[in-house]
Structures are given as C-alpha cells and as structure tokens.
C-alpha cells in the first residue's frame, strides 16, 4: 500500500484495482471510534460470540480458541461484541469512552 501513497494519477493501477492481497489489514481505522470495548478476561467464558459477531475481526483469539484481547487498530467501536456477550451479571466486554 505504501508505494501508492506518493503516486500521481498516472501511476495508479488500472480501474483502481488493488493488487496486493489482504492489504486492508495495513489500513488502520481504530482512531475513528468514539467508544471502545474493554476486555475482562476473568469473567470471559470463551464462548467466542464476540469473535463471531465482530465485523472487523478485531477480537483476538489464540490457538487454544481463548479470547485474549481486542485489536484496537481495527476496532470501530460498534459495541456489537458487548451487546452479544452473554455473561451475567457482568459482561466480559464493557464499553467506555476513549
């Protein structure tokens, strides 16, 4: 992606096609959010609902399928993870203002 940042219009790929597979990962949108999720590992039951529902693949999960954190570089603060978290009386993901 970096090679295009300085490109003039002549050097852009035809039709604005993105030729580098999966480079959306390099585009950090985390600063766009107003609120952010906070992960509480001591409450988490690792049901993975938050991971399933997250539209940005911003819930971090390890090889043992345990939730380990949030990718704040790509989380847009939509709060779906918190809404879907089933634990009671406290949620394993809560929302706070940045």
């Amino acid at each position, binding site marked *: 992606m970096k090679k295009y940042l300085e490109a003039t*219009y*002549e050097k852009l790929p*035809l*039709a604005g*096609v*993105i*030729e580098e*597979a999966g480079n*959306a990962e390099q585009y950090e949108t985390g600063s766009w959010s107003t609120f952010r999720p906070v992960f509480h590992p001591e409450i988490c039951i690792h049901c993975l609902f938050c991971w399933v529902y997250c539209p940005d693949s911003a819930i971090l999960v390890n090889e043992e399928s345990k939730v380990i954190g949030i990718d704040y570089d790509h989380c847009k603060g939509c709060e779906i993870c918190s809404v879907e978290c089933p634990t009671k009386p406290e949620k394993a993901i809560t929302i706070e203002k940045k």
Partner: protein
Amino acid sequence: MPEKLALTGNEAVAHAMRQINPDVVAAYPITPQTSMMQKFADFVADGLMDCELVLVESEHSAMSAAVGSQASGARTMTATAACGLALMWEILGIASAYRLPIVMPVVNRALSGPINIQGDHSDTMGARDCGWIHIFSENAQEAYENTIQAIRIAEHPDVLTPVMVCLDGFIISHGVEVVKIYDDDKVKKFIGEYKPHYSLLDPNHPITLGAMDFSDFYFEHKVSQLDGINASPQIILDVGREFKETFGGEECYEYFEAYKMDDAELGVISLGSTAAAARLVVDELRSQGVAAGSVKLRVFRPFPYEELAKIIAPLKGCAVLDRSIAYGGDGGPVHIEVRSALYGRHPVPVMTNYIYGLGGKPIEPEHIMTAFDDLKEAVVQGRPRRRVGYLNLKEEAMAIA
C-alpha cells in the same frame, strides 16, 4: 458471401450478438429493445451459441450482473432502452470506472415522464457523462456493424471502456430493411478472443475490485479513467478501417459522415435515422441551386471536436438538430458540443439549434426544409430568429386553440 436477410434493426443486432457469441448476457426486457432480446434468446435456445443468458429481475441487476461477469473475465453484453438505462444509471459509472469493455446496444427511447415508448435520444444523452463511448447508427445495417466493431473498440488494451451502440427506437429497431449479415467465421475472427486485463476469478493474481476511495485518491482515479476514452478516437477509426477492409462494408466508419459539405454554405447536423431525411432535403436544395450539406454524427462520445469544427467552420449557417433537451442548458446536448467545438475559430457560421422528434414525434423532410429556410434568413440577418427552435412542435396549434 454475406447473406442478405430482411430484418428489423433489433433482429440485425441480435444476429450481431449471435455472431459475437458472448460468454454471458444478462438482460431485462423493455420496449423497444424487447424483440432484440427475444430473438437473441431464440438463438440461445436453439443451441446456436454457448452463451449463459441470465434473465435478471431489473435493468439495475442486468448491469450489475454484467459488471460482475465482465470483471470475472467473461465477455459480457446487455441491452436496454429509456428508463431501463435510467435504472442502470448507478452502475454505468461503475462499469466505466472499472474499465470493463461491456458492449450494450441501446434502443433509443424517450425517458419518462410522461411515459412514452417511442424513439428519441434523451436516454443515452442523459447518460453522456457516465464514461461510456456512444456510437449512433443510422439504420439496421449500421446497428449490426457498429455492434461488432464495438467489441473490438471496447476491448482494445488502450481503451478498455464500455460502449453503447445506439439505434433509434421503432424507426430502426422495428423497421424492416435488407441487411447484409456477414459470414459467422469471419465475424468470429474479426472480434477475436477476449483477453481480460484482470479477472476476479484468477487465483494466481487475487485482486480486490471496487474498494473505497477518500478525497486523497478519488480525484486521481477519475482522471486516470480518462486515459481509455481519450485513446479511443484513433482506435475507433482503426477498427472501422479494418472492418471496412475485412467485410467490404459501405456504411460510415468514422466519427461522422459529411454529405455534400465540400462547398456547402448551409449545413445541418443530426444523429441516427434523421440523417437520411436530411440528405433528401440537401439533394432537393442542391437541385434548386442552394449550396446545402449535412453531417451525420456517428460518434457522440468521445466528441470529435477538432474534426467536426473543421467541417462546420466554413459554413455560413449551421443548424444542429437535437432529439433531446438539455434542460437548463443551451438547447440540446449536440448543440452544446458543437458550439464548444467552434470556440476560438474565426469566422464561424451563424448557429442555431432545433429540438425535434421527442417521444417519437415524426421528423420529415419538410420539417428539415424549414430549418434550412430559417438558416437562409439567419445568414442574411447575421443571427437566427431563435437560438433554440423546434421542428414539428404544436406551437401554432396551441395558439389557435
């Protein structure tokens, strides 16, 4: 040997599509295109081609499917008219921005409202800035030949721009003419194999198409899109020349056809089937000793400013006939372009614009004759009676009532 068949314009274009044998056609019916797709569907059902014909639920879907299909490396066509084109409008700009060489016959019909199913140019003129190439046909033979040439023009690696092949609704689409259908193998060889610039279905070169742009790059992408359509004028001529040499055709293969313009003093510019009526009027005037001439514009986008200005500038008087209105603009779209073409030249003819034929209103030689009569007067006066006039409009009738 070309086969001579009595065909309507729609059938002629359907034959062109049969010979092109696209991989995919996604279409939705709309008068006056319907009989084209019906004939084409017959060809597919009869096993004369191996085309995937997708009968979609709307024209918006038709163009969306065409974009997806062409982007996946399949040679794709569709066809429409009027409000069908209007319904596709959102996707037209996407097709051209993605540099997809989709070829689409458009049977020119009036845009609503009021609802009218007859011929005028408001549909394609309404889409004139969508980044497509616009080629107008005068008759069924031209519609057939333009459709074949359009594949070569669109797919040329320097162009990669979608093409609309325009034919007048009902006048050309439903009128029967003797059409020369060229040999299937010759047409197949002429259009060649489609070599996509990129494909969504190429696992060795995965791409993302249609990503989001912000103000840092949208402008740059849109300007780079001009490369294709700006390279197309020469290719349109080259393909036309090659077509003429290969098939021995006798139609128009350039940006426009000038008729008795060499020493003309009064000239008329028109598009589509009207050009034939204009030539009749020119012949009548010439027999009366009037130095009349006419120009049939074939390529509206990209507009041939330099070449047309050279032909028009020496006239004393020029009338531009528009079959659509540019509301809030200077009459009709062709008039606007012609004036722009003449800017900076000295001397220039006295110019006037006539709107005619909207919603299939007949345009006959007698109406074009009044345009020439007005022009004669305008040249004497040094200016036209009206900058924008109308041919065969019920003006006088309304005044009497």
